[in-house]
């Protein structure tokens, strides 16, 4: 791995994103719109908005980065640039970290803008630290990126890549505890929930937003989330083959 190559890759990905301002606007403002919708949907139940809205701030970057990464990486595979890169003195880790740095920066922008809106104008209240919510959001972005990278290896077309969103992201959100508390789930559903990395990311977020304290369980959540991210990155790296058929 070479820092020069890693940063060159991050700069290249950011330049590509900059070329597509419409996508950036969608990435930053669609979550704003959704949070605003939630706010007015739960106009009469501010406590529900606080519970759901706070957590949603942390989950948007996960969803966005999953899609953006799986499509971008699929393009690299399909257009031949990946094959070209694999013949150059570039370590797989340079490519992965380059992507991670670029998308984490984008996640910082996204999470910050949505948080400013939610906390500033929409009266969202969280019990814990607002900065921690943004930090967790960025961490979730990297998790989404790592899963998206891995998923891109199994798609041949962009249509397929987009379908991985409902296939891989939705079940994790449904079973995370956001809709039904994990304690009330059927045993087998809870077992599946236990196996999903987003469950731990959600738990960490809800601990912050509900002010349940950042004790040992919070640390455990972080360890599992970071571990899952590294595992997905390693699996993603394994799908970047220098030799193909």
């Amino acid at each position: 791995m070479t820092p020069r190559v890693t940063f060159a890759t991050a700069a290249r990905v950011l330049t590509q994103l900059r070329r597509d301002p419409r996508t950036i606007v969608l990435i930053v403002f669609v979550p704003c719109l959704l949070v605003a919708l939630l706010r007015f949907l739960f106009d009469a139940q501010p406590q529900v908005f606080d519970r759901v809205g706070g957590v949603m701030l942390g989950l948007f970057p996960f969803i966005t980065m999953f899609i953006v990464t799986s499509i971008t990486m699929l393009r690299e595979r399909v257009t031949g640039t990946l094959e070209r890169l694999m013949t150059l003195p570039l370590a797989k880790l340079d490519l992965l970290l380059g992507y991670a740095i670029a998308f984490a920066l984008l996640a910082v922008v996204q999470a910050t803008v949505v948080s400013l809106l939610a906390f500033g104008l929409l009266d969202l209240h969280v019990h814990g630290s607002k900065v921690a919510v943004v930090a967790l959001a960025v961490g979730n972005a990297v998790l989404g990126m790592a899963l998206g990278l891995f998923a891109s290896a199994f798609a041949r077309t962009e249509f397929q890549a987009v379908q991985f969103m409902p296939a891989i992201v939705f079940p994790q959100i449904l079973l995370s505890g956001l809709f039904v508390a994990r304690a009330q789930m059927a045993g087998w559903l809870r077992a599946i929930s236990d196996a999903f990395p987003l469950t731990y990311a959600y738990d960490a977020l809800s601990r912050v937003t509900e002010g349940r304290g950042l004790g040992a369980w919070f640390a455990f959540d972080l360890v599992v989330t970071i571990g899952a991210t590294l595992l997905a990155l390693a699996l993603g790296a394994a799908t970047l083959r220098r030799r193909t058929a």
Partner: protein
Amino acid sequence: MAAIEVKDLRVVRGERVVLPGLSAEIAAGRVTGLLGPSGSGKSTLMRAIVGVQIVAGGSVRVLGEPAGSPSLRSRVAYITQAPSVYADLTVRENLRYFARVLGVGGVDRAIETVGLESHADAVVDRLSGGQKARASLATALLGTPDVLVLDEPTVGQDPLLRRELWDEFRALAEGGAAVLVSSHVMDEADRCDELLLLRDGDLLSTGTPAELRERTHARDLDEAFLRLVEEAA
């Protein structure tokens, strides 16, 4: 010693045997043309030489190392048949990125060599097919590679530019590099020092253009190729 040594190379893609057992040597300091109709296995052979092709058997050695060795990655330049540059970056941004990955300079010179000075700051997506191919070719001209593997670099280019590109390949070979260029256009064969004629994954013949004409008593290389096919049949 040959810069590239291919021995009994066998490549199978799915059910199809693309290269049944090909052996060839490609010398440094020469422009070697890899010619044959489309589907003859030219790109597969080139992919095997740069080490991105899964091979079923045989060996490919480049500069004395197994093809695809990490030490070769900054010494072997490669362009694919389809332009492999980022469509959403400008020509210059693409070249800067590849130059930084290689740790070399020479971006402006490479752009000049492929005649894209006036389009250097245009986004690749908006260029014509031939210009995209040239942007892709420019990435292979960065630094001082010892081996260049160029898959149909002159397809769709205007005759004047084609001549300039061949002059550039010649200059690179005179500088000591092994230059392997594929083409399915026989009239480009005369610009090569050595030819490898490929058909259905088999090497029909090798030699200089003059040798091939003489051996087959053909006036041009198109005819020479036809006679070699008939001989083999």
